[in-house]
């Protein structure tokens, strides 16, 4: 009884006090941190700082400090550490496929209440975005990530190299058969020119591998449950065999792992006829490639498919309501059609909000640059991005095997089996406390 009364009195006293404090603070902007990665090449960190300065200059209520936190994987590590230390940033541009793990670990807040205060249901809100983005953003029916910069892998090819190899640049390879044929024809001995290159470093490697598996009709992972991957399914085995064929039999792809810099460097110098790279690199390639080039869909075996990539804005747990509101304001501004369109034109990422493409600037851009249009058109074939429990480690289980395959250290069948075994071991703790947990 006394306790209740005291609590009530305390609340009665605290409420107006809190209001007073809030009123006094209203004049002062709420200071928040935004962690952002730069996963592709180009001067993106510079541009992001400029963008945030503009946001700060446009309104008095929120003051954002944008902190550049390295690659997607680095940003993940730093965000996790910050949350554990009790100092979460108010918002993070997180690799969209890590969102599920944050949900599993109970480290993010959903956006539903914030969306609701604007009079929308989460589903209505997400309707404004490309549908392929939804599975990595909406988890268990709640919105945890707002897409900001999104991509799919694209096939870039050099027009001169194609002509030189007797190929028609107006008809890029559309199927795996045509792809292998083109790669073989483009290859010149002693590394003078490779048929195809793609980044095989961690993160990129898993993304492109998953794309090949999906083009081969596969799922690669269970979209609805974070405890299963299908690394040894026939669709995966076929994709690994395709790599084996092009690298080890036809020697049309340089052996070993190449990073993005090696790929673009070789492409710019005419030392590779084709490369697979993110749409997020479109602007970088456009401004650095001196000779003519074009882009095409990822070639298919059984179906056209391209995995979604890119970053979504998330709100780590542990922020005050005040900071969440401030972050929401920033999120809305960054993902508005105008700003996301601008960012899309600067980088090559596609703008996640459909309305961005109705703006005149964007229409002109897509018309002017046919490569941007191809990227946009491929969206209809976009599939969700790999996300599981312990995403990075499970992703690496396959990546290590692909890397070994690229150096002829293993066979496709062995690689598929080893990747599955490694992934199963990593997923085991989660599987045991979820799918395998039965009523007593």
């Amino acid at each position, binding site marked *: 009884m006394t306790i209740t009364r005291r609590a009530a009195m305390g609340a009665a006293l605290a409420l107006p006090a809190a209001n007073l404090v809030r009123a006094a603070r209203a004049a002062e902007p709420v200071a928040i941190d935004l962690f952002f990665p730069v996963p592709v090449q180009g001067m993106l960190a510079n541009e992001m700082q400029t963008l945030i300065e503009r946001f700060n200059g446009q309104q008095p209520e929120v003051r954002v400090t944008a902190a550049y936190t390295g690659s997607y*994987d680095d940003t993940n*590590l730093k965000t*996790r*550490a910050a949350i554990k230390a009790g100092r979460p940033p108010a918002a993070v541009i997180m690799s969209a496929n890590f969102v599920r793990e944050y949900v599993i670990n109970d480290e993010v807040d959903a956006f539903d209440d914030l969306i609701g205060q604007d009079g929308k249901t989460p589903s209505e809100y997400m309707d404004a975005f490309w549908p392929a983005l939804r599975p990595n953003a909406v988890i268990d029916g709640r919105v945890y990530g707002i897409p900001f910069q999104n991509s799919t892998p694209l096939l870039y090819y050099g027009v001169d190299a194609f002509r030189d190899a007797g190929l028609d640049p107006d008809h890029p390879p559309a199927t795996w058969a045509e792809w292998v044929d083109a790669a073989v024809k483009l290859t010149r001995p*002693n*590394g003078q020119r490779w048929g195809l290159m793609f980044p*095989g*470093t*961690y993160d990129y490697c898993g993304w492109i591998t998953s794309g090949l598996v999906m083009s081969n009709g596969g799922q690669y992972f269970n979209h609805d449950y974070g405890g299963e991957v299908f690394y040894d399914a026939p669709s995966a085995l076929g994709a690994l065999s395709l790599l084996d064929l092009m690298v080890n039999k036809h020697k049309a792809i*340089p*052996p*070993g*792992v*190449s*990073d993005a*810099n*090696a790929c673009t*460097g*070789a492409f710019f*110098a005419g*030392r590779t006829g084709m490369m697979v790279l993110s749409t997020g690199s479109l602007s970088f390639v456009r401004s650095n490639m001196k000779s003519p080039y074009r882009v095409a869909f990822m070639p298919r075996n059984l179906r056209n498919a391209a995995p979604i990539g890119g970053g979504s804005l998330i709100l780590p747990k542990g922020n005050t309501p005040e900071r969440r509101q401030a972050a929401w304001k920033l999120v809305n501004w960054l993902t508005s059609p105008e700003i996301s369109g601008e960012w899309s034109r600067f980088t090559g990422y596609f703008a996640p909000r459909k309305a961005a493409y109705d703006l005149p600037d964007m229409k002109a851009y897509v018309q002017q640059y046919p490569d941007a249009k191809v990227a946009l058109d491929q969206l209809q074939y976009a599939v969700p991005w790999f996300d599981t429990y*312990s995403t*990075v*480690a499970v992703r690496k289980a396959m*990546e*290590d*095997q692909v*890397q*070994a395959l*690229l*150096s002829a*250290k293993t066979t496709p069948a062995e690689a598929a089996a080893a990747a599955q075994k490694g992934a199963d071991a*990593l997923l*085991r*703790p*989660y*599987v*045991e*406390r979820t799918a395998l947990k039965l009523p007593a």
Partner: protein
Amino acid sequence: MPRQALAALLLLAPSAAFLLAFSYWPVLYVAVESLTAGRGGADLGNYARLFADPHFAQAVRNNLVYAVGTIAPSVTLALLFALALRDSTRLNAMLRTLLVMPLLIPLVAAAALFSFVLLPGQGLLDWYLARLGIAATNWLGDPDLALGSIIALTVWKNTGYYMLFFIAGLAAVPQELLDAAKIDGARALARFRHVTLPMLGPTFGFVLPIALLNALTQVDHVVTLTQGGPSDSTSLLLYYIYQQAAQNDDPGLAAAATLISVAALLALSLGTFRALDRGIHYAS
């Protein structure tokens, strides 16, 4: 006497407090943590899991290769450089400076430089090798070469440092001893083997443990250049620990691996000290 003991206690207390908190307690902590910290759903102990983990075995193997691969060439080169540059002429001083410069820069900066040096095709190395007609090489992307490239970077970084000690060690070899050997008609190589080398015993006793410590505790270049890849070919022990702690969020495995590293470091360092000690005794 007790007055001195009291003074000593007061003077040593600040250091002792920090040593306890950050050097000795941590060892105790990992020992306990490695036995108690579990992982949801895992039914094996941390050590059993660690020894069953192929990534750990790979990291241990890599670290052995890395230790031998960095220590042998950098110590040998350091000794050769020291022999060539022992006299303090102006030219020698300049050459010494060039060799020591890598010591002054952070390992992450060295890694940033080498990410370009080793870039296939356009990088510093391949660009000039191409002039000799040598085709582009995937220095960091080929699992057979990647560890070697990381080793080369480490040798580049540390050799100048070890050279300094050998120069100091050589300065301590009495000239009379060498002169006497010369009069005896000993050839240069024999003089080096029977006079100079034994006198350098203490220098080796100094340099080898330091080199060993570097081989076990420096992974900045792995973190920034290769992330242990491709296919785990450049994963070292400490990188494995970092991965378990930061990326896989598995404190039990990280603690078990830490304790094993500490034990290995202590055993090997003491072993080196001993072996060299004996070597010096034989020599004298």
